């Protein structure tokens, strides 16, 4: 590769022509020649990072689904004893935590990472190594929470010491007096690591979208998915501090004897609820907005029409983001906040239905009069609109305080948010995977199997969750280990479990189909869907450098205009840079940073506690956290000093070499 000697930030190293020895790659900075595990652990390529996010998140989706099936099998028959009560509590706690933090959020992050930089014509995200760190912090945080399964519980009940506090960990259930074991500690530390990963990823995405758009790509020309990425990232950076502080306060309560949530010293458990939901409600939009972006990409492509009301969709998304911060207390209507607070939050909750409704009408307007092609991504998007609407309607019911008082903590609520999170979220994400698989791997998902899976997921999901409306209305409380036959809940619980098993089976088939297609699927042509946005101007899958030359954008839906629009609207390219495309080197330090954090967090679990683990008693002070902190600090310093490094690619005249 020719490098320009005047480029001072290029490391002085001999040009490597052959692959260096494998072992040494673990002890020096990896280069573009290192492949395999070293490359995966150290990569700074947003596409590989996105794929790894996707792989881990889909795996956790399966684990979370399995936990849900344990719950459903337990509830299939009255007075069932498939799992004991503690295990049941652990299952619903870990199911919620896994699905929200380890499956849906990272699945969104996978799309953000892979698609967003391509949609804005960027080479990579703004801070590629920070992106690597976000990925590994997420992976280590996810492993960390799940490690709790392996440690024995204090009283011998349940499976290991997995948390049994519900996914929102209400005080005082989390205090030492109610949970002396390790479960809550694992939950606290794990969520803090995951929060750090999300925060850093969001700073990265915000900077990337605002700063690295191709020339001519004004904000109001951005694809809607990129817009929703931006809004979601802002929601994350404003919402996550609340949960982080709440978790830190809880950690101090459990480890250092403070009284933030301890009633006996005057602390207020209700504070936890407020702090949790100040994060928790924006979190709902953090989960759904990316999917709204995905659907807004899919619908115009398969209706062969531009998105109806682009500006309205974008601004509705932004308004949802703003209002999302002013409705948290509708999760707490029954806590007795007083008439004024309750009324205010009730009105705000009703208001937030307006921008959501605007979006739904815009999506319907997009399909209306289009030449609709019912491919799998389109089917999932239509499923999204209809099922998300059902979840939305029950949501509006909850905004009314007297109605909410009846439905609080009942299966009606379970039905509501699963319609939003599976009917909305999972449908949108599955649609996105079917739609972008050619971009991910250059291969296409089998359409017939895709449609079968769609039908199975649709039927299974509705069978599982629609009856829960009835169950909730007839008084079945959520988080109930079992119920008496006289309650009259047998029938719908049985069918709900049948539906859940169906849903689980088809999602597992989907998981296998995704893996198969990604590695072995049928190759497809460059632009299989006749798409509209900039990511389809790259190869399938995109080359490491994304765009050989930076595109110059003239209109919204640029690729569609290139193919079908007026000639003067066609995309131009900037002249190739004389020294080629600068590609930074991989780095070990982001990975080591997350290792340091993992060790420090593990040390905090055993800090000051005498707990027998695998036959030996741990009684530690701060040795392990300090060790982890030193690894972290050392890695940060090395990271700061190593610089971007890298080499230059000359895409056009070097096409064959690059694809190696």
């Amino acid at each position, binding site marked *: 590769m020719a490098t320009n000697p005047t480029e001072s930030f290029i490391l002085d190293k001999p040009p490597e022509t052959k692959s260096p020895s494998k072992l040494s790659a673990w002890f020096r900075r990896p280069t573009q020649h290192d492949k395999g595990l070293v490359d995966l652990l150290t990569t700074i390529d947003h596409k590989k990072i996105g794929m790894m996010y996707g792989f881990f998140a889909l795996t956790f989706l399966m684990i979370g689904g399995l936990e849900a099936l344990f719950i459903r099998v337990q509830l299939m028959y009255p007075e069932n004893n498939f799992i004991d009560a503690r295990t049941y509590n652990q299952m619903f706690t870990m199911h919620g935590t896994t699905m929200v933090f380890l499956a849906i959020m990272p699945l969104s992050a996978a799309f953000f990472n892979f698609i967003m930089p391509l949609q804005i014509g960027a080479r990579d995200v703004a801070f590629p190594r920070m992106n690597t760190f976000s990925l590994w912090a997420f992976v280590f945080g996810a492993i960390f929470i799940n490690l709790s399964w392996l440690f024995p519980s204090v009283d011998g009940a349940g499976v290991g010491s997995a948390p049994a506090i519900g996914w929102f960990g209400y005080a005082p259930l989390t205090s030492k007096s109610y949970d002396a074991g390790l479960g809550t500690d694992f939950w606290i530390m794990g969520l803090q690591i995951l929060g750090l990963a999300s925060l850093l990823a969001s*700073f990265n995405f915000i900077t990337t979208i605002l700063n*690295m*758009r191709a020339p001519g790509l004004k904000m109001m020309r951005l694809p809607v998915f990129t817009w929703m990425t931006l809004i979601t990232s802002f929601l994350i950076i404003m919402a996550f501090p609340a949960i982080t502080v709440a978790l830190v306060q809880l950690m101090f309560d459990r480890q250092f004897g*403070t009284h*933030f949530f301890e009633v006996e*010293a005057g*602390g207020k458990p209700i504070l936890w609820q407020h702090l949790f939901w100040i994060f928790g409600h924006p979190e709902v939009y953090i989960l759904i907005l990316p999917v709204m972006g995905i659907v807004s990409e899919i619908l115009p492509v398969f209706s062969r029409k531009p998105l109806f009301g682009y500006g309205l969709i974008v601004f509705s998304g932004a308004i949802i983001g703003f209002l999302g911060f002013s409705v948290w207390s509708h999760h707490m209507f029954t806590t007795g906040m007083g008439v004024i607070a309750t009324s205010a939050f009730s009105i705000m909750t009703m208001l937030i239905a307006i921008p959501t409704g605007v979006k739904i009408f815009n999506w319907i307007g997009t399909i209306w009069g289009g030449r609709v092609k019912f491919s799998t991504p389109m089917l999932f998007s239509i499923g999204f609109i209809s099922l998300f609407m059902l979840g939305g309607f029950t949501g509006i019911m909850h905004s009314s305080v007297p109605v909410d008082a009846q439905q609080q903590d009942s299966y009606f609520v379970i039905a509501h948010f699963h319609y939003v999170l599976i009917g909305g979220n999972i449908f949108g994400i599955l649609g996105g995977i079917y739609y972008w698989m050619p971009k991910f791997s250059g291969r296409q998902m089998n359409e017939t199997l895709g449609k079968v899976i769609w039908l199975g997921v649709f039927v299974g999901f509705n069978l599982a969750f629609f009856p829960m409306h009835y169950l909730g209305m007839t008084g079945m409380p959520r988080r109930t280990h079992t119920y008496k036959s006289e309650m009259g809940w047998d029938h719908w619980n049985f069918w709900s479990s049948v539906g859940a098993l169906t849903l689980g089976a088809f999602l597992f088939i989907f998981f296998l189909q995704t893996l198969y297609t990604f590695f072995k699927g049928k190759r497809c042509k460059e632009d299989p869907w006749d798409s509209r946005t900039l990511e389809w101007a790259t190869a399938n899958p995109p080359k490491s450098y994304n765009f050989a030359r930076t595109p110059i954008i003239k209109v919204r839906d640029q690729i569609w205009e290139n193919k079908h629009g007026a000639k003067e609207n066609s995309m131009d390219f900037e002249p190739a840079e004389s020294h080629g495309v600068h590609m930074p080197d991989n780095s070990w330090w982001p990975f080591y940073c997350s290792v340091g954090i993992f060790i420090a967090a593990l040390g905090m679990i055993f800090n000051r506690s005498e707990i027998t683990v695998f036959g030996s008693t741990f009684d530690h002070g701060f040795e392990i956290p300090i060790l982890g902190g030193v690894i972290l600090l050392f890695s940060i310093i090395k990271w700061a000093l190593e610089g971007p490094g890298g080499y230059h690619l000359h895409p056009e005249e070097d096409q064959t070499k690059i694809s190696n």
Partner: protein
Amino acid sequence: MSGHAVQTSTGIPNKKLAMWAFLASDCMFFGTLISTHLIYRKIADNINIREIFDIELTSFSTFILLGSSLFMALAVSAAHKSSMQSMRKMLAGTIFFGLIFLACQVYEFYHFAVGLELTLSTFRGDYNLFGTTFYVLTGTHGVHVALGVFWLISWLIYSYTGKMKPENAEDVEVAGLYWHFVDVVWIIIFPVVYLIEYI
């Protein structure tokens, strides 16, 4: 590319924009902690907070921290003018004032904890919420100052390695943004935690 700043769509350098995003996020961190303190402030009835605080000392350290911001601004200005000697002096001044502030806080914590028996959980043996919220809030701020001092010391050392380039002025400015923010947070903490007790 290396000789001049990388072009960005907004004209704001990437690192600076990311720092602004982080500071927005950090506002919410401190907002949550300060709210917690204000909500819990009146619950503890077995403590007279006016007798605890040493307002002269805290006023002094507040003044010192404000002064450090002046040094920081001058350091950033010097970095942009590529006047290395002046930047080093101003950075050293910022670090020195930051360390005085930290020393005051360490003394304050030590005095409260050992002299007045105010711990994270108790005051003179009785359960107390004031220590809980006070230490965690001001301690978090202290950690921010300490990280800032560490960051500035890193730049000071780096400036002696001979590797510092004119583009690094932007990085010093980003560190400066952080330093000023931590200062602004203290300007909020000082009235709502300390002065409010004297109303």
